[in-house]
């Protein structure tokens, strides 16, 4: 029994994937759907998170591949919260997600398209955000040629 226990432990430890760090994670309650069975891929994906914080809608952009992060996030001129210095490439590649405005989202999508044309995009929006915000994000993706993308949902049966 102990042997099997260790075997399972090793298996789960090796298959576990940790969420990349986020300064200020958004609380997103996913919309519910029945028909979707495709799983979200975990490599080569860019995710636009749209969540509510109080009455404000907050948009963040996350990349799954760490090597793509530094070149894509660079044009945002991010600075360290404490020291105010610009972030280095190494620090940028550690950042799981970055907060973006409507205008900087377009910059980031454009950079991401140039950096990795094989990348797929997904919209991870809270069920209570307005359609208008999601529509704007979809238009931004469409503008830079990412016309096939995914909307992340939660399966009804699992709720």
């Amino acid at each position, binding site marked *: 029994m*102990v042997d099997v*226990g*260790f075997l*399972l*432990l090793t298996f*789960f*430890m090796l*298959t*576990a994937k940790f969420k990349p760090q986020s300064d200020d994670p958004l609380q997103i309650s*996913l*919309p*519910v*759907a*029945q*028909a*979707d*069975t*495709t*799983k*979200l891929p975990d490599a080569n994906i860019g995710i636009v998170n*749209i969540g509510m914080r109080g009455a404000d809608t907050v948009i963040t952009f996350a990349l799954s591949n760490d090597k793509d992060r530094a070149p894509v996030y660079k044009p945002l001129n991010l600075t360290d919260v404490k020291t105010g210095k610009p972030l280095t490439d190494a620090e940028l590649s550690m950042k799981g997600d970055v907060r973006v405005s409507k205008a900087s989202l377009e910059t980031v999508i454009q950079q991401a398209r140039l950096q990795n044309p094989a990348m797929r995009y*997904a919209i*991870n*929006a*809270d*069920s*209570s*955000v*307005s*359609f*208008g*915000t*999601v*529509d704007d994000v*979809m*238009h931004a*993706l*469409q503008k830079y*040629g990412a*016309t*096939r*993308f*995914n*909307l*992340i*949902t*939660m*399966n009804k049966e*699992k709720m």
Partner: protein
Amino acid sequence: MAEVVQSGGSRKKKGVKRMARVGVRMDMTPMVDVAFLLLTFFMLATTLLTPQVMEISLPPDSKIPVQIAESNLLTLRIRKDQIVFWNIGNEPPQKIAEREVPKVMKEWLMKNPKLSTLIKIDRDAKYQTLIDMVDDLNVTQGDLHQTEKRFSLVAMDDKDHELVSNL
């Protein structure tokens, strides 16, 4: 012969080993406890993250108009207050309860497999309604074994607001 010799030799060795290990006993309980604790943690932490995805394709350029026969177009309009209106072609929009939507979709998709669905949503409506509409369509098409997905998503314009505001 050989067997006898072998067995004698091994017995001797066993005896020696047993002598050396007398009194060495390791308590493995704490280690096993920790291992199972970690196992439980990893099991719980991994199974929780399983999001599904809904596939959406947009035309590469929204400025190029797509010609479509009036009779092949089912329009669903969703007002700010989440009330759904439907119509075929240029007919006047009719109010419908949200759970009746799949019924209408099924009825018209069975009549006309070439039907395209246009989903027009008010910019202030909830994102969940978009998912509901596309999901209903996916479920209906799945039931009818239609694999080709024909739908488009747009925000409502002033004309649409005018059409459904007084209904």
